[in-house]
């Protein structure tokens, strides 16, 4: 089986418009969470989100092109452009027929759908915009990336709520490892800030009234985020042969289903996915030095995840560094795994582990080394990144420093 290298990364999020800004914020423990600007927050019980502030599509797309794309698809293309440029590939030499695009998105272009419903039900107009379907479909991100880069191989989108990106990246990794594809653009994108969708989250009573404080005893819930991260995956031998700069190696992918409850997570299910990722990467638990946690800061997730990590890593859990970068880029749902993969890769590459921001009080039920508030210089060889979705679908990725 072939080894798989990550040769390009791109990201757009509340932490900045590119991977450099993204990493700079994470490294300094700076959160992108703030008062919502793109929706009327006076109508909401919560006020804060992790938005891509001041975003103007015409900085990235001509007007006609932007008309055809929801914000989530635009974010996907912007991150893919950066990742491909970052890979140093000479695009004219790339065999586009053997390249794959695999994206994750939880809710696709629901902002466009929401606008259509406002026209229909609120403004009482008898019609919605004819591009509503093309903007709303969750595969639009993958489709626009394929069109922009002329990629004619397999391209599809995985939608497994908060695990979407990890499932997508994992499938892309396996496709290269097994020889099905020679190049993959993979990651996820999401744009969550529409009134209808925010109201649905409000009704679930899991959104924090202030900020996201994962693993902290005084945590008050999650904070939604938006954005995209994409990466370029190649067979390691080919990447080395062309003299590519390699960010890290992707070595393991594990999945599981809780088969339990539609919203209540199970530590057993989460642990099964972590074990599967370690097994897939032939990694022993003691080799792992850092976990980028799912860490949503809900009452339920963080103790569940702590229990799952303890079950998998045993005594080694006391020496493991674990942080939730959702405390800075927010919970970007279908893009969460991609942003967190980017954070994990940059962490092992730079030998700096990003912190859990907003942390204030130790919680006996979350008794892990959560890297409170300040990043830590530490070389780690192996790191994993957890995603656990509503619906009980779990996906875990494992990376290695090269």
């Amino acid at each position: 089986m072939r080894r798989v290298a990550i040769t390009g990364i791109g990201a757009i999020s509340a932490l900045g418009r590119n991977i450099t800004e993204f990493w700079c914020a994470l490294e300094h423990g700076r959160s992108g969470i703030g008062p919502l600007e793109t929706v009327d927050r006076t109508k909401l019980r919560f006020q804060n989100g992790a938005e891509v502030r001041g975003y103007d599509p015409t900085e990235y797309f001509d007007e006609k092109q932007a008309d055809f794309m929801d914000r989530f698809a635009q974010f996907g293309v912007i991150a893919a452009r950066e990742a491909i440029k970052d890979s140093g590939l000479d695009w004219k030499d790339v065999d586009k027929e053997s390249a794959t695009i695999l994206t994750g998105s939880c809710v696709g272009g629901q902002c466009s759908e929401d606008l259509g419903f406002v026209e229909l039900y609120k403004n009482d107009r008898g019609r919605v915009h004819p591009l509503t379907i093309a903007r709303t479909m969750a595969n639009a991100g993958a489709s626009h990336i394929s069109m922009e880069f002329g990629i004619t191989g397999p391209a599809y989108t995985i939608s497994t709520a908060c695990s979407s990106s990890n499932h997508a990246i994992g499938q892309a990794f396996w496709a290269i490892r097994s020889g099905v594809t020679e190049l993959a653009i993979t990651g996820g994108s999401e744009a969550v800030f529409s009134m209808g969708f925010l109201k649905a989250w409000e009704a679930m009573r899991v959104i924090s009234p202030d900020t996201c404080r994962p693993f902290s005893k005084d945590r008050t819930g999650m904070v939604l985020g938006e954005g995209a991260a994409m990466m370029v995956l190649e067979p390691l031998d080919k990447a080395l042969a062309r003299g590519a700069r390699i960010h890290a190696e992707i070595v393991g992918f594990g999945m599981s289903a809780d088969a339990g409850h539609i919203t209540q997570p199970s530590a057993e299910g989460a642990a099964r996915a972590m074990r599967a990722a370690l097994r897939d990467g032939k990694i022993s638990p003691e080799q792992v030095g850092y976990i980028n946690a799912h860490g949503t800061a809900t009452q339920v997730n963080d103790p569940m995840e702590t229990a799952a990590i303890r079950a998998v890593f045993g005594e080694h859990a006391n020496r493991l560094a674990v942080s939730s970068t959702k405390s800075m880029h927010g919970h970007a749902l279908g893009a969460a795994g991609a942003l967190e993969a980017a954070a994990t890769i940059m962490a092992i590459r730079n030998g700096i582990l990003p912190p859990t921001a907003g942390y204030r009080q130790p919680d006996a039920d979350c008794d892990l080394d959560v890297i409170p508030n300040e990043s830590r210089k530490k070389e780690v060889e192996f790191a994993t990144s957890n995603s656990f979705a509503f619906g009980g679908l779990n996906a875990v990725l494992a990376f290695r420093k090269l």
Partner: protein
Amino acid sequence: MPDQLTQRVLNAIAATQRISPETVTVDKSFKELGIDSMDGINILFALENEFDITIPDELAKQIRSIQEMVDGIRKLVLEASAAKAQGQ
């Protein structure tokens, strides 16, 4: 006999849980009625609609029993009618 407000709370719980109203009484625990945390959130939604009130998350988190739920709703309904009277 429970008073009218209590009965409306119990009916909302029964309707949300899809169980017979006779089985829901103030002395039952959430566990006895098979109410998990997501069911609890569905019940809060039903109660907000039934009484046309907003139940703040902070208050919702403190509710541990049906009696506390009834007491909390009574307080919010009284506050809402007082606010309405003041507005008039």
